[in-house]
């Protein structure tokens, strides 16, 4: 059976050229439980949205919807002008998702894993791209070891390589520095940090780091938006209130 390749990625979207993300009253349920309730926000191209909220607030659900892994049950969800889930095929080449799970096969080496994803994303000159990423993340020396033999921090570095392998324009980052030592966290900064030039959605409980990197802040609790504002209009103490009390 012949499998047709979907349309190629859209042209790169430059910062300031419009909206990267638009959510209009998005609701998502798991059975009877509403994980997100009428969530609305928008994010400009090239900006960083920091998403805060206690466990179960709906942060991961939001990321998984933006990653095209979940569909919204109500509302409008648009990424780089493409409606989800209808135009998911246009969005997928543009998105890099760094989730809790590194999405790496334990019985393959780091290099084999990256080569596998490079084939799926049709990355041009994959060998040199992979070598570059392994070098930047300091994983070159252990690149041919099975992932099962690596520490969680090393696997996270490989996961960063996987997430940026295809040069995504939208980075979805769920606690990206989890398991990384300070040196590794600095090493991956060029790839997924503010200097990456990508539009970013950053889910973190590290308030200081999150606020320092954000252009905009979204705070969720029980699936509701409790704060959505430019970073200069919201303080760390406001965000702490999301975790421990009400936001003022």
């Amino acid at each position: 059976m012949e499998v047709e390749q979907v349309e190629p990625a859209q042209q790169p979207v430059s910062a300031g050229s419009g909206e990267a993300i638009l959510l209009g009253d998005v609701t998502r349920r798991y059975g009877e439980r509403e994980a997100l309730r009428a969530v609305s926000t928008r994010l400009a191209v090239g900006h960083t949205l920091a998403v805060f909220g206690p466990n179960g607030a709906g942060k991961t659900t939001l990321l998984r919807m933006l990653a095209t892994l979940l569909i919204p049950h109500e509302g409008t969800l648009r990424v780089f002008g493409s409606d989800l889930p209808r135009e998911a095929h246009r969005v997928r080449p543009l998105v890099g998702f760094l989730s809790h799970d590194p999405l790496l096969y334990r019985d393959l080496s780091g290099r084999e894993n990256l080569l596998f994803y490079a084939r799926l994303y049709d990355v041009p000159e994959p060998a040199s791209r992979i070598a570059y990423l392994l070098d930047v993340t300091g994983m070159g020396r252990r690149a041919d070891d099975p992932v099962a033999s690596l520490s969680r921090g090393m696997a996270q570095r490989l996961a960063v390589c996987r997430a940026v392998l295809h040069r995504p324009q939208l980075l979805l980052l769920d606690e990206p520095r989890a398991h990384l030592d300070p040196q590794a966290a600095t090493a991956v900064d060029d790839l997924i940090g503010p200097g990456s030039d990508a539009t970013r959605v950053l889910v973190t409980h590290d308030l200081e780091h999150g606020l320092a990197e954000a252009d905009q802040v979204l705070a969720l609790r029980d699936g509701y938006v409790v704060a959505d504002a430019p970073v200069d209009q919201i303080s760390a103490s406001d965000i702490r209130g999301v975790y421990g009390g009400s936001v003022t």
Partner: protein
Amino acid sequence: MRPVAAILRKDLVVELRTKESVPSMAIFAVTTFVIFHFGLDRDRLEGELAAGVLWVTLLFAAILGINRLFVAEREQGGFDGILMAPIERTSLLIAKAGALFSYLLALELIALPIFALFFLSDGFWEALPRLLVVAILADFGLAVMGALLASIAVHTRARDLLLPLLLLPLTVPVMIAAASATKPLLSIPMETSGVGKWLAVLALYDLIFGLLAYAVFDFLMED
């Protein structure tokens, strides 16, 4: 075809490295032959009994491999990685069916000579080319249905139970056709009349269920 090749290649490399599926399928098949050998208290089988023993054993051995087909994707997050990639989702079905087809062929390369050793007096090598045609057509149907149903069952807690419950009724036509096509080949003397009709039934099953799986897989992978 690039994503299909990438996923298939990954699966075969992982199987060669871990040896989790084919060896257990082969050991199961050989053990079952031993049990039949002593349970039936027969040194030699022929005709429909031989065909039945062979195909029932191969089907149950196949279930072991089908059960493990998506385990790496489920346990190591590969589902998300593949579903986020800009590829047709049916690539996953085709690659998984391709991997399972390879496992089944490998199983038969091991199991058929051992079956002949246990149960056939002679005529095995004469029947082998036609037997392989039957096996290839039956394997295609099993691989497609196995991959489709494994992709459903893997998301459930009771997947070890659910998979055989779904698979066995749906593969009854394959078993009937494969056993019926094999019966004259394992008769003494070997016959060839009637084989073509059952090969056509197998091919028809492969076509219908192949198209059906292709049509519904995208929907099954949705959310």
